[in-house]
């Protein structure tokens, strides 16, 4: 059985996703239970896969036994195994969180369907991670995107369907660009397998076809990961989606998009072309990333809705990841990969703690958070831990990735990037401190807050605690990402 694990990690949740809505008709709790079962299975499976990679090296699984490059190949190496573990772990955490949160925010009759779509979203993400075939990537990308659009539209607020629709339009344009890029690469090389493309593309980099293909990929993925200035779908989508959906999408959706982008850049196109021929491309992305880092934080300061503030904060964090990628050196890339890990943890904790407050109260305005620090201590302490981590205080995960990004910048001699990193951290201090000030140091109305159920608090606190644990035991993610970077650099 274990030799089929790479595909079972995808197939079993997929099948369960189809069963969940049906089972939900018998008893609504079954659909949640099946979702939890599916995500737990995926998590255990991904841990086993990463373990196997650490001991025996990269796993290559041939779908249906067909040999690549004719068949579809699933590849688990340090990079994909690492991201797979992160995504499946956060999926488990958010699923536990979702039980009461979703029951509160979504219409009763729609809940079984919700869990079906929710599981399909996770399946889509995981498929994007494990696949080694770029068209398969497109298929899973669209699975996760479509379900994402639907999940966003299920929010309680009036604006949710419109936010979902706008996300759909922009997202589909992006996905179609990616499809075009895939098509152009196929025209140029005749293969769809990522490793094969990596072997065949060198030598073709002068052709306009390949250059255009990369341009399409760049735009398409920039839309998917909400890289400034193609980020406009993100604030509304994260704000109006149900709390559990925001938590899951913010922490995994854009990260998997970044993962795929990194795969395309390093495995399909290969780092050499960016160092030798297309030299202006990394510089271009460095500028965009720096602008994203600063503008995202500046826009976040102006927000009055806490979810929107966190959404703009995500825009700036994506900038960090792309900065690490665009540095085109091993340490910088390691910083980017670490930030994928760290930001996923931090944002999940932040959105879940906001969800705890919104439970049964619908409070999302920062002004309404006054005095909540002592009424909801655990979730607010979790929020503070996430905030400190985003600012980059040592002993939190945020510090580790910023440290590596700074080192990567100096490796290239680009010391001017360090002020950018530092200034955006200080900006983060400004907008997070405003919230923390409201929470702990201002008196609120004597409103009785409903008690937060344990099933919501425990995942929040655990994920927030991990922000501190992996900030102190930083050698664990650093080791894994270090090996991943070696593989990506070839």
């Amino acid at each position, binding site marked *: 059985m274990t030799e089929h694990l790479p595909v079972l990690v995808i197939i079993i949740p997929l099948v369960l996703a189809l069963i969940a809505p049906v089972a939900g008709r018998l008893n609504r709790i079954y659909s949640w239970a099946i979702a939890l079962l599916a995500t737990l299975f995926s998590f255990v499976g991904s841990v086993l896969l990463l373990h196997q990679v650490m001991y025996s090296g990269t796993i290559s699984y041939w779908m249906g036994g067909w040999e690549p490059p004719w068949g579809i190949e699933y590849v688990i190496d340090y990079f994909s195994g690492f991201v797979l573990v992160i995504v499946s772990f956060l999926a488990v955490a958010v699923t536990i969180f979702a039980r009461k949160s979703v029951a509160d925010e979504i219409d009763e009759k729609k809940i079984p369907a919700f869990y079906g779509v929710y599981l399909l979203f996770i399946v889509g993400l995981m498929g994007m991670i494990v696949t080694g075939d770029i*068209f398969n990537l*497109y*298929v899973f990308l*669209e699975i996760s995107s*479509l379900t994402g*659009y*639907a999940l966003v*539209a299920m929010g309680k607020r*009036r*604006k949710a*369907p*419109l936010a*979902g*629709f706008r996300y*759909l*339009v922009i997202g*589909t*344009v992006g996905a*179609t660009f990616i*499809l*075009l890029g895939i*098509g152009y690469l*196929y*025209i140029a090389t005749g293969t*769809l397998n990522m490793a094969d493309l990596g072997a065949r593309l060198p030598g073709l980099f002068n052709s306009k076809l390949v250059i255009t293909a990369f341009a399409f990929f760049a735009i398409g993925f920039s839309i998917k990961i909400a890289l400034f200035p193609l980020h406009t779908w993100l604030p509304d989508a994260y704000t109006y989606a149900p709390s559990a959906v925001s938590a899951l999408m913010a922490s995994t959706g854009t990260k998997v998009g970044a993962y795929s982008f990194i795969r395309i850049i390093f495995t399909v196109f290969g780092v050499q072309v960016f160092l030798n021929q297309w030299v202006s491309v990394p510089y271009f992305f460095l500028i965009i990333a720096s602008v994203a880092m600063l503008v995202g934080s500046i826009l976040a300061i102006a927000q009055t809705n806490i979810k929107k503030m966190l959404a703009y904060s995500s825009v700036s964090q994506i900038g960090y990841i792309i900065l690490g990628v665009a540095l085109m050196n091993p340490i910088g890339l390691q910083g980017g990969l670490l930030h994928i890990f760290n930001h996923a943890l931090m944002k999940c904790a932040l959105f879940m703690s906001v969800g705890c407050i919104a439970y049964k109260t619908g409070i999302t305005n920062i002004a309404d958070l006054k005095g909540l620090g002592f009424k909801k201590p655990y979730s607010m302490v979790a929020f503070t831990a996430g905030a400190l981590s985003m600012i980059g205080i040592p002993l939190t995960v945020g510090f580790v990735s910023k440290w590596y990004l700074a080192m990567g910048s100096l490796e290239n001699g680009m010391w001017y990037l360090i002020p950018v990193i530092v200034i955006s951290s200080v900006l983060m201090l400004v907008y997070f401190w405003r919230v923390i000030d409201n929470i702990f140091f201002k008196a609120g109305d004597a409103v009785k807050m409903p008690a937060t159920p344990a099933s919501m608090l425990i995942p929040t606190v655990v994920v927030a605690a991990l922000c501190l644990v992996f900030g102190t035991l930083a050698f664990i993610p650093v080791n894994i990402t270090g090996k991943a970077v070696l593989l990506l650099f070839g």
Partner: protein
Amino acid sequence: MMEFILAKYNYWIYVIIMMIGFYAVIAKSNLIKKIIGLSVFQTSVFLLFISIGKVDGGTVPIYQGTEAVYINPLPHVLILTAIVVGVSVTAVAFALVVNIYREYGTIEENAILEMIKHDD
């Protein structure tokens, strides 16, 4: 020059159709028209993919027992998948528009944005 245009006519057609679709997505205010534009946009890409599969002198790619020149079946397979994806996108989009109509009573984006300004 003319040979250049004529030889690559499939690319020209797909680009023109794509731009028409893209224009509709951006410029039209009616949500249904946006969806139509999106669909046209995606269809142009399908046309491109299929057109590149053509092999001169090739025949239907069903093995007939003898050696023959076949056109490339792979793009067809890929596009079948992509068409299904496109159909799903359109379906989800329509579902969302129905919901929007229920909420706002209109499917003109300008009118909806006006209403939202008074909301928040």
